[in-house]
């Protein structure tokens, strides 16, 4: 029986531009630490090999340090790592791979499959048929040669490719590199390990996308896993087990606020989210000036609890109720200005009007706090 760990789309070197600096650093760091966990898992599960199906690096020109750190992170598992390039790290004439080799960063147990050539692991009883990308994008099916590829009898035929399976994911993948849907059959593969799709997905009994081991975008397609694949013998049906590895679930929420209790519900919902989550919150509807103050307080608390909290309040109208105005002592013309701004917040310059209203409200509140003892 052979056992593999199937993973892909590590995207090491990825930067998170939309995040606060410390969040961005932590998220980038998480992409490396998950490799350590994969290595640990590989050791624990005593797999025969770790199959990495492309997009190991996020870009060709990552720093030398990043390259070294990646290979260092693989060190807990000393068995064979079989890696192919994907569209982000294609095996071009000069690539991150050639650099890694030049740097001497690639350990002996890491097999870089940069050419479409059978890799035999006779002792372990399997042969790998890699379909590395040697261009950033291609319109031809790089797994085509699997059909004719000969492997010694008795060895498992394991395909390793990066791209989109035709007719199944065509619309959703991020590259056009096509893979025939029946490749496992035509090429008599025991298992085809795929990368490019960031969620874990079964295409057929023998064909799987492992998904990225650490989530990197707001897409709830079951990312953050590796696949533990057991193949009893050549031709036998593989057993695939999904193992979670991600640290930071990415959660996207859109909530509508209408009545004041909605706000309480929102706060409760936020509190239910896991701690290390990366949360994107979008609010719609309307909120009173006082409610806004309360909301901001709650968001501030939530921000501290999550790995990252980003919120978009641009579709959240501010209501200036009579209570608001009374509470803010916004009498006289100040009150008029607030009403005016409130009415304008849905117009062309709505954002500015809303901001102006928020500033005014906060100043009034501040004054109220200061003026209390006057």
């Amino acid at each position, binding site marked *: 029986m052979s056992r593999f760990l199937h993973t892909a789309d590590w995207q090491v*070197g*990825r*930067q*998170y*531009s*939309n*995040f*606060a*600096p410390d969040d*961005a650093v932590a998220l980038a760091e998480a992409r490396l630490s998950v490799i350590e966990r994969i290595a640990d898992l590989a050791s624990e599960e005593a797999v025969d090999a770790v199959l990495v199906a492309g997009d190991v690096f*996020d*870009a*060709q*020109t*990552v*720093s*030398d*340090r*990043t390259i070294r750190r990646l290979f260092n992170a693989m060190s807990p598992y000393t068995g064979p790592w079989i890696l192919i390039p994907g569209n982000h790290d294609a095996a*071009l*004439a*000069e*690539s*991150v791979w050639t*650099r890694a080799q*030049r740097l001497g960063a690639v350990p002996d147990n890491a097999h870089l499959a940069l050419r479409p050539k059978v890799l035999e692991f006779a002792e372990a009883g399997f042969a790998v048929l890699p379909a590395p990308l040697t261009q950033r994008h291609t319109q031809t099916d790089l797994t085509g040669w699997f059909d004719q590829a000969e492997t010694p009898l008795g060895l498992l035929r394991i395909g390793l490719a990066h791209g989109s399976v035709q007719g199944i994911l065509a619309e959703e993948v991020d590259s056009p590199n096509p893979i025939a849907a029946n490749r496992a059959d035509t090429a008599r593969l025991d298992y085809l390990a795929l990368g490019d799709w960031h969620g874990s997905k079964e295409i057929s009994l023998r064909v799987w996308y492992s998904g990225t081991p650490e989530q990197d975008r707001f897409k709830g397609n079951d990312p953050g896993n590796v696949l533990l694949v057991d193949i009893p013998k050549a031709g036998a049906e593989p057993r695939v087990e999904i193992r979670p590895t991600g640290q930071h679930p990415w959660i996207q929420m859109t909530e509508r606020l209408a009545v004041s209790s909605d706000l309480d519900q929102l706060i409760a919902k936020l509190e239910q989210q896991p701690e290390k989550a990366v949360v994107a919150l979008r609010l719609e509807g309307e909120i009173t000036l006082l409610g806004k103050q309360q909301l901001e307080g709650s968001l501030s608390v939530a921000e501290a609890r999550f790995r990252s909290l980003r919120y978009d309040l641009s579709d959240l109208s501010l209501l200036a109720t009579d209570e608001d105005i009374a509470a803010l*002592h*916004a*009498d*006289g*013309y*100040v*009150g*008029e*200005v607030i009403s*005016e*701004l409130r009415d304008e917040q849905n117009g062309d*310059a709505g*954002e*500015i*009007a809303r*901001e*102006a209203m*928020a*500033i*005014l409200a906060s*100043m*009034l509140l501040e*004054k109220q706090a200061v*003026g209390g003892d006057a």
Partner: protein
Amino acid sequence: MRLLRLKAEQLRQFRDPVEIRDLEPGINLFIGPNESGKTTLVRAIRAAFFERHKSSSVNDLQPWGDSAAAPTVELDFEWQGQSWKLVKSFLKKKLCDLTVDGTVYSGDEGEERLSNLLGYEYAGKGASQQKHWGIPGLLWVEQGSGEEIQGPVEFAGEHLKAALGGNLGEVTSSRGDALINQVAAERAKLLTATGKTTGDYAKAIAEVDRLQEQFEALQDRVRQYREQVDRLGQLREEKARAETDRLWESYRQQAKDAEARLAEVMAWQRDQDRDQQALEECQTSIQTTLELLNGFQDKQTELARREEEKGEAEQKQADLETRKPGHEKAVAEAGQAHKAARKTLKLAQQHQQRKELARELQGIEADLESDTAKLARARELHSVLLENRQKQQSLEIDPQAVERLKGVTSELDHLAIQQDAVATRLQIDLTDDQSITLNGERVVGRSEHLLIEPGEVAIEGVGTLRVLPGGEDVAEIARARQNLTDDQESLLSRLRVTSLAEAEGRLKQLQELKQAIQRDESLLKESAPEGLEALSDRLRLRQARKDELASQIQALPEQDDNSSPLSLAEAQLESAQQVLESAEAARQKLTGDLSLAEQALNRAKQEWERLNNELQAPDRKQREKQASDRLIELRLKESGLKERLAEREKQIDQAQPDVLEQDFERFNKSADAAEQQQENRNRDLIKIQAFLEAAGAEGLEEQSAELETELDRANRRRRELERRAKALDLLLTRLTEHRLELTRQLQAPLQRHLNRYLQLLFPEASLTVDENLIPEVLIRQGLGGEERGKFEELSFGAREQTALVSRLAYADLLLEAGRPTLIILDDALVHSDAERLIAMKRVLYDAGQRHQMLLFTCHPDNWRDMGVIARDVEELKG
């Protein structure tokens, strides 16, 4: 609010209770001299409202020296249908009881109600001060402070705005101004006054720009990097292909083939060149042989020509010879004709000479005749002249002397007349036979005598009478006459005449003679201009010539009629001469031609002989035959060569040597290029490889992603700040606008009331108020148009009047807002002149229609026309 009753006791001047009842709803006038208690009354009202009953700082309310007094004020008033009663005591008896329609509010509670009603505050500690007085401070004017308006309005400000706001249907903002300041301050952190970015905002923009620039530069490098990667792949592929193909080797082989083929063709070309040369040599030989043959042919032709020439020369010589005798004859004939002509000419010349001599003789004979006549006449004239000249000498007289004689004679005549006139007349009339002697002369009968000198008349027998002509003139005339007579005689004698007439006759005769002489002289000159001698000489010479001519003519032959005239003879000679000359010339030329013809004939003969001899040489035929044979041989060789050349030429052309040469060059160059390209590729590969290794180590895309992160962050910050700046700007604009709008709304009714009163004081005037409702500028219509005066720059009187008008306007506003108004004026308008005072009284009366007014004055006369009965404060104390 209507004050009904006021009672005060133990209060300053009022030790005993003083009470004022039945206060009118309008104007109440209180009069009294200074110190009579008017001000005490005012103070009592103020104390009742403003001072806390518990206050210990109101000692001034106590009567002089009475520290045990409990100053007390009681006030009854109506407000909104309710009757209010206030009893307030201070110091010794601290009390405040406010009863509103039977409900009692004591102490502080009462006081709060009062302050809320009227709109004022209490002092936190000590006596109440101006700043606490609020609205009453505005409406209750203290003595001597009527022109003060800014302070009271400011202190009443909040109450005014609160009171008036409701009336306007708007609520003023209690914190607006502070808020505006805060917004402005926040805005100033991001934007300058003119809206330019500053502070963090400006920094954020600069940061974005900086990062953007860096980012773009990095992106460029990434792009460049990727291009180089692609190029590397491409080059490697090309290099591998080139190494497989090894094109340069095939090119080299092709070049070699072309070269070999070219060498072959070059050999053909050399053969061709050799044959070409042979052909040329052959053709030269043909040419030479042809020329040789032609030479033989030419000699024969030339001999014939020479023979012909010789014949011609002989013919020519013979021709000339035959023409010779003709010419000789012509010359002889012309010589004879010439001789005859010469003879004729000589004869003609002699005839001509004789004719001329005869003509001269004829002339001389005529001259001789004329000269002989002239000489005779001249001689005659000459003798006459001699005679006349002699005569002239005898008749000679001096014409001047004659003239003088004429003058003297005339003068004498004149004197005689004079003498006659002055002379004493002695008329004598004697009887017959009687006589007398006058100056010795006897006188008889009648006579008259002129006596110019004394005369004696002797009468016989009587004696002698002496007559003496009187006067000097007589004597003088006589003397002059005597002188003249002397002159006359002298002249006559000189002229050898006896009388003037004779002299004149002689003079005339002389003149006539002179004229005759002149005439004769001129005639003589005509006949013999050079004198008689010359004339006679000429005559002699002519005679001699005549004789000579006669002899000459005699010597020459007589002329016959048919002899030729000279001119014809001359012409004939000339033509004869010409004929002779031409005949001689013709003969000369013929002689020359003949000798030339003979020479030519000799030459022609020699040439012919020489050529003839040559042609008759014995080996000539053989040589000609040899040449002909050789020509045939050469022609054969030539055609063989030509054929061979053409054939080979075709062969060479088909081989295309120039193309072969190009092929050789092309393949060689292609091989070079292919090798060079491969070399370049290798070099580029190394270069690109090095570049990529260096660039790759920089982690460009990672850097770029990091920078993008930073740029996004900076952009977000810039957008946030921009939004905040815009929001603050909007906020500031809106707040300011609304505040201004509100101020305008507040001012409108005040303005209306102000203008109403102002019209009574200054027609067509208006008063502007600032945002705090404080009078600002008084605008009046003067003679020169609009006059603007700032309130604080007005005169004291005008300030007081304007301030009072403003207070009344505020009162109107408060009334409209349903607030109590009570106006108290303590000795107001003392600085107004009579005219203004009249106007102000109209103003006050008008206000009195709406407001209760307490007027205190120490100038009762000024205020009697307020339509009310004045109350004397002194009497109140009564």
